[in-house]
């Protein structure tokens, strides 16, 4: 099988510009969540968020680009630029990768409502002549994808995935499969999200996953798996990765940061209220299959980055799913979630988790879950709390999930430590959760 490796990272998050600031924020165990000041959120139940305040679009982009596009596109094109630069990737030209062998995959949930709300307000209040002709193209979720392609001269496959908070994981999985099938040599894959506008925020409020309990103390608002968990705090940001075939990376002499060795996705939509299964059984299957695809067993797994939405029923289902997937390993494999330190970045969440997983493997450290003071009753996993923990590790399981029951799991590995296995079609076999698949199964 073609190995899919990661050679570049770009990140703009509430922690700052670049993935290093993200890593240091996560290690600190302190939250960057703050009271929203981008709009008057005083009448909303949740009034806190992660804001990527270090990013000012006009510092990076010309005015004619900014007037045509929403901030979620501004974030995306600059994060993608960072990733390309980090990977030392040339696209086109004599020594570069052929443009039609480079793809773009983007995860996004909300689209560009900051732009759209302003224009729709003018439409109803003043009439059609007051609406920007860019309204239609600025809003739609595929706008970042198109603008990244134009800016970087990319001519290969390009897709946008809208799968709630698992959108970025879906983008990464599709990128990996595109490379594995030989349809591209390189895919710039990640996500972008800018939820800080009145209507977008209202949509999230009616989605009923934001915490109403943290307005008085924003830094303590997002509490994954804690007994005081009351819902998610979301944030804005964009994270992109450069994924490529190992052969292509080697041929161009790229530094390989790690390997995307396994992945799996499934769905467990559940009524009422468009939620997900409370028992986590289907999610556990995605976890198992991602490890199976990475060719690893539970005893090979170094740590887990959980989704950790802090929605009580979602936290509970995720704990049950991890217990089912990890078996005896559930009490000894360190579990963390980094999101409480900067907010759940929705479309960008899983790409950020992959960036963090690469650091965890490189440094042999599992960062703590910010605000996890007292795990909720029955949440008896080996959560990393209060301080980073040293843990030599070659494989990290990343869990992503969204409303309506979209589950997507990734296995990030030290380069050369995993052999991707052929995927088994759903329902074709029973997975042996305690046995390594090394050596070929």
């Amino acid at each position, binding site marked *: 099988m073609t190995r899919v490796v990661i050679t570049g990272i770009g990140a703009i998050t509430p922690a700052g510009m670049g993935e290093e600031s993200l890593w240091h924020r996560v290690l600190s165990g302190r939250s960057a969540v703050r009271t929203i000041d981008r709009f008057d959120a005083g009448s909303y139940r949740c009034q806190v968020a992660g804001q990527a305040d270090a990013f000012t679009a006009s510092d990076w982009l010309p005015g004619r680009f900014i007037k045509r596009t929403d901030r979620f596109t501004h974030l995306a094109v600059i994060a993608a630029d960072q990733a390309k630069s980090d990977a030392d990737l040339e696209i086109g030209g004599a020594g570069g990768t052929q443009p039609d062998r480079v793809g773009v995959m983007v995860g996004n949930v909300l689209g560009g409502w900051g732009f759209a709300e302003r224009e729709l307000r003018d439409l109803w209040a003043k009439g059609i*002549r007051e609406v920007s*002709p*860019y309204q239609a*193209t600025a809003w739609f979720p595929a706008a970042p994808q198109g603008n990244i392609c134009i800016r970087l001269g990319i001519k290969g496959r390009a897709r946008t995935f809208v799968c709630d908070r698992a959108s970025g994981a879906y983008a990464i999985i599709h990128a990996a499969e595109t490379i594995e099938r030989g349809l591209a040599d390189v895919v710039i894959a990640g996500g972008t999200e800018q939820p800080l506008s009145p209507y977008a925020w209202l949509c999230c409020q009616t989605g009923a996953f934001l915490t109403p309990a943290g307005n008085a103390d924003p830094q303590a608002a997002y509490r994954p798996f804690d007994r005081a968990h009351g819902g998610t705090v979301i944030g804005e940001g964009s994270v992109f990765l450069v994924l490529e075939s190992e052969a292509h990376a080697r041929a161009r002499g790229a530094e390989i940061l790690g390997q995307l060795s396994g992945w799996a996705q499934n769905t467990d939509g559940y009524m009422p209220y468009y939620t997900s299964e409370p028992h986590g059984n289907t999610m556990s299957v995605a976890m198992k299959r991602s490890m199976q695809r990475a060719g690893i067993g539970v005893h090979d797994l170094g740590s887990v980055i959980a989704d950790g939405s802090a929605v009580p029923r979602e936290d509970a289902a995720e704990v049950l799913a991890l217990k089912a997937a990890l078996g005896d390993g559930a009490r000894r494999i360190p579990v963390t979630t980094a999101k409480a330190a900067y907010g759940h970045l929705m479309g960008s969440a899983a790409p950020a988790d992959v960036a963090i997983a690469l650091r965890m493997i490189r440094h042999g450290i599992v960062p703590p879950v910010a605000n996890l003071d007292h795990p909720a009753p029955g949440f008896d996993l080996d959560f990393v709390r209060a301080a980073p923990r040293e843990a030599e590790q070659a494989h990290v399981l990343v869990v992503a999930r969204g409303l309506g029951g979209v589950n997507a799991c990734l296995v990030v590995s030290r380069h050369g430590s995993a052999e991707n296995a052929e995927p088994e079609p759903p329902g074709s076999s029973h997975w042996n959760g305690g046995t390594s698949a090394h050596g070929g199964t």
Partner: protein
Amino acid sequence: MEVREAVLSTFGNLEFEPEEINDDTRIREDLAVDSTELAEIAIALEKTLGVVIDDGKFAQLETFGEVVAYIASARPD
């Protein structure tokens, strides 16, 4: 002259660089204006200069100088 300055100012408000524009500047080739941005320019000129622009005629203008001349001829005064 007054019309030229007003048109140039409108271009500036739409994030063009006025110092890079002269009468011979070609709207599509030199400024890379596409059909969407052309519509934005036409509407902005209508609003700021009180003219009524014929979309078909406006789309045929090639240079900035021709835009200025068209706007001057279209002004009610």
